[in-house]
């Protein structure tokens, strides 16, 4: 989703007011964001929260 908008991790981090490491950790499934941050992400992408976070574990490489 981030890539579709042409945003870097740092750019998305700036928009959300978090660190680039946070975005990287969320994208790679190493960190589950709090509910307020998950909602901020959903609002930013104008997408329902469940479409971004479905609760499933990321697939193993």
């Amino acid at each position, binding site marked *: 989703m981030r890539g579709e908008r042409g945003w870097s991790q740092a750019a998305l981090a700036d928009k959300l007011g*978090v*660190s680039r*490491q946070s975005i*990287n*950790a969320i994208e*790679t499934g*190493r960190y589950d964001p709090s509910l307020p941050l998950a909602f901020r992400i959903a609002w930013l992408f104008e997408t329902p929260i469940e479409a971004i976070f479905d609760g499933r574990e990321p697939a193993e490489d």
Partner: protein
Amino acid sequence: MTNEQATRRYFSVLIPGGVLFLGLSYGLKLAGNAALLPEAVLGGAALVPAALLVGMFWAHWRYINEIDEFLRSIQIKAAFVGLTVVMTIATAWGYVELYVEAPALSIYWLNPIYWLTYAVAAVTITRRYGDAS
């Protein structure tokens, strides 16, 4: 306040505080060995490093409250590692001293041990969870 600003503010307290702690601790040891100061003055001066310690922990508390939730989780895990190491050393050494003729461990070493293990843990956890892509 951004994470970068919070980090700079944290290190601006932590690094001088740590250097001062070590310097004062060494100075106190020299003063004590050479009997340069009256005992009461030495006792009072010995509390100064403890005040620095409180300042360093206060800076850490403020830092943890200022950074974002993911970085906060790393800091809390690292602090827990430091606490675990210090408590384990203190408890184990205490029992060893009690039952075996082991040399006494000066408990002021627990502070540097805490910060050292916390720092190593913070770097390790950040590399493991924060920076790997």
